[in-house]
Structure formats: structure tokens, C-alpha cells
């Protein structure tokens, strides 16, 4: 792949990959590193991929693998059985609530969702991937993807509700003394 084609590949995918990485890594520096490392691997290995149409899927899968590789070094696994249920059906207020908060707060809410659910959710929301595509990208069974989407959405709604509530709180003025209340 020549430099121009590589630049086109970067332009077409790096922003979406960054959003995916940001949801996983939960900070901008590590997210940037993950994206850069992914394209570095492409430059050294992936350019041999025969079907360029599969490049996008390859990039997302590689980024996810890199993320997991980094996580394995210093963290313990989270098992589905250990996760809180976090069930919550959507109501009209949820839509209104998420509409009113900014995109950074929505990202923070997404980042607070358990890691197991976060990757499929991000691909669903950011990349508009189907459940089959998510399964292929994350290399997990289709049923697992559906389960994680369902439970992850419930957690996300709770997180967004929390973010919206926090954003609407009236903080007391620092000079206020005990007994005074900011309205």
C-alpha cells in the first residue's frame, strides 16, 4: 500500500477508531496510543490484507485486541456473573435527558459502563454495526453480543441519568456557611 492509499485509510477510519478507543481506554492519551498502535500494526502487517473492503473490520478488531492485551498485563478479568444487573427500561424522560447533556458527558457515561458491555455498545452506537458485525469484530458469539447490548444499554441509561442529575445539581457557593442553602 502506498503512502497516499495509507493516508486515505487513516482519514476514513481514525476518527471512529479514536472514539472506540476512547470508550475503552477512558482517557485521551491512551486512546490516541491505541489508534496509533493499530495503524502501526497495519503498516507493518495489515497492508498484506488482500481485501481492502475488510480493512475497517480488521482495524477495529486489531484495536480491540491491543486494548485487551494491555488490560491483561495489569488487571483481572471481569466476569459477567460478577456484574450488577443494572436493568432499566427506557422511558420518555431518558430521551429528553440524554438530549440535553453534551457529547463529552455521554462519552463519560459510556465509559462508566462495564468494560464487557462497553465495546459492543460503542460499535453499535458509533459505527452503526450490526450484531453480526460486532460479533465478528470482537470475536465473540452472536448471542453474547445481543446479551451484552441489552445489558449494556440498561447500564448506559442509568449512567446517563446519573450524569444528567449531576449536571443539574446546584452547587453551594464556596462562601456559604452551614445552614445556608443554594437554591
Amino acid at each position, binding site marked *: 500500500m502506498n*503512502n497516499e492509499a*495509507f*493516508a486515505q485509510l*487513516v*482519514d476514513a477510519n*481514525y*476518527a471512529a477508531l*479514536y*472514539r472506540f478507543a*476512547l*470508550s475503552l481506554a477512558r*482517557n*485521551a*492519551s*491512551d486512546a*490516541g*496510543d491505541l*489508534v*496509533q*498502535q493499530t*495503524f*502501526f500494526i*497495519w*503498516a*507493518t502487517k495489515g497492508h498484506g490484507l488482500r481485501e481492502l473492503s475488510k480493512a475497517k473490520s480488521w482495524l477495529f478488531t486489531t484495536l480491540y485486541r491491543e486494548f485487551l492485551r494491555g488490560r491483561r498485563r495489569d488487571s483481572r478479568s471481569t466476569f459477567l456473573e460478577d456484574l450488577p444487573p443494572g436493568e432499566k*427500561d*427506557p*422511558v*420518555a424522560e*431518558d*430521551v429528553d435527558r*440524554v*438530549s440535553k*447533556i*453534551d*457529547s*463529552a458527558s*455521554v*462519552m463519560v457515561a*459510556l465509559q462508566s459502563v462495564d468494560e464487557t458491555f462497553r465495546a459492543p455498545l*460503542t460499535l*453499535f*452506537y*458509533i459505527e*452503526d454495526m*450490526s*450484531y453480526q458485525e460486532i460479533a465478528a469484530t470482537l470475536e465473540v458469539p452472536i448471542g453474547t*453480543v*445481543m*446479551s451484552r*447490548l*441489552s445489558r449494556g*444499554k440498561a447500564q*448506559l*441509561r442509568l449512567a*446517563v441519568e446519573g450524569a444528567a442529575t449531576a449536571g443539574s445539581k446546584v452547587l453551594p457557593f464556596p462562601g456559604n456557611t452551614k445552614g445556608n442553602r443554594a437554591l
Partner: protein
Amino acid sequence: MRTEEAKFILAAFRPGGADAGDPAFSEALHMAVEDPVLGAWFTQSRAHDSVVSGKLGEIQPPVGLRDAILAGARVGKASRPRSASWRWAAGLAVAAGLAVALLSFRSTVHPQSATATLASFAIDDMLNAKHGSSGAPAGTLVSELQSDGAKMPDADQIDFEKLRDTGCRTLNFAGHDLLEVCFARGGAEYHFYVTRRDGPLGDAVASGPSFIAQAGGAAAVWSDARFDYAVASTAGVAALRKLL
């Protein structure tokens, strides 16, 4: 199919409707039409998904990430990962190759390639060369750099001649001196390189820091009026950012 099963399946239905033709959803979709409670739930769920999707799509990558990716890939193509057993010899070969190449492209060097070249040299040297084998530690500078929160030095803090005499190593970079000072901070090891601005890269290295990661290590490269700088480490880009 029970309502809860339908909800479970419909949670994977993309808000834009792209899955409408997928048979896996047909029964659940039919139920949502027939059951007003489920239908209301599905409507709310899709609306929620649409808003979340739109909000997340507004997140933009940081300025400079694209350039860093392109520069990093160029370095990657130039120096593939090697096995540890012959890293040292390979590093010398890469360094020698870079030195020869630099002599020939001195007059046409571009900012991105100069930055990538210096980063590649620094990372290769860090990974492959033997450090600290000659010269005494650069005393004061090393002490300062090892302090938590200390920033990398600028031209006012660099006495090139003195540093050459007391630095960790002096490398031959296309016929010019490239000084290396090694220091440790927070359990990580860093290799700081400095060369004169009138050296092999001329004034082509960009002033703002560029961060380049490749297999095995990462480097930050920047410049000021008098010097080009690189600092390399295996601690990653996030650790390097804290130095600048």
C-alpha cells in the same frame, strides 16, 4: 415469544432501521406492532439510541493524531520489529543506514520525515544499543530530570559542549554529535537525545512535540531555535507527555 425475549432481541436493532430485513428480528418486530406496550418501549428505545449515537459521533480526535499516525507508520515501515537475539546488531545497522540516508537527503528533508527519522533513531538506539557504557552521568541535568514533575530542558539549559563531556553517550548521527542522557523516573527509564539544529536534519524538525509509537517503544520529538530533541522510552506515549 415472551415480551422480555422480544426486548432482548430488539435491543440489537439499529436505530436507523438497517436491520428491518433481518429475519432474526421479524418475530420481535411483529410483536412490537401488535403489543402497544412493547411498541412504546421500542419507540423510546430507538429514540434513545439515535440521540446517544448522534452525541457520540460528535466526539472529535485530538489535533495532531492523524499526523502522528502517518509519521509512526513511516517509521514502522522503515524498521520492522526484530527478535531480541539480534536486536543490538540490527540497531547498529539501522543507525548506520539512517546516517548514510541522512547525508544524502539533507537538502530535501521534510518536517514529518525529519521528525520520524529522529524518532526512529532514538527508539532504535534505546532498544538496541548498550547504554551508559562510556562517560560519566551528566550530573545536574540527570538529577533535575529524575525529579517528579520536571520538564525536559530547553536551549537555555543545554550547554552542548559541557554535556558532551559529561553526558551518558555521544553518538555519531550522520557525522554530527547526538548526545544522549539517560535518566529514570517513576520506575521507568528514559533516553534523552539532543543534536544541534545545524546538524543532519537542518531546521526540518517541527517545534511542537510529536509523539511516535512503534513496537517496543515510543518517542517524543521537538525542537527549538538551537537544538533538535528526542526522548524515548518503553513507558509509552502517556508517560512521555508528562515530561513535556
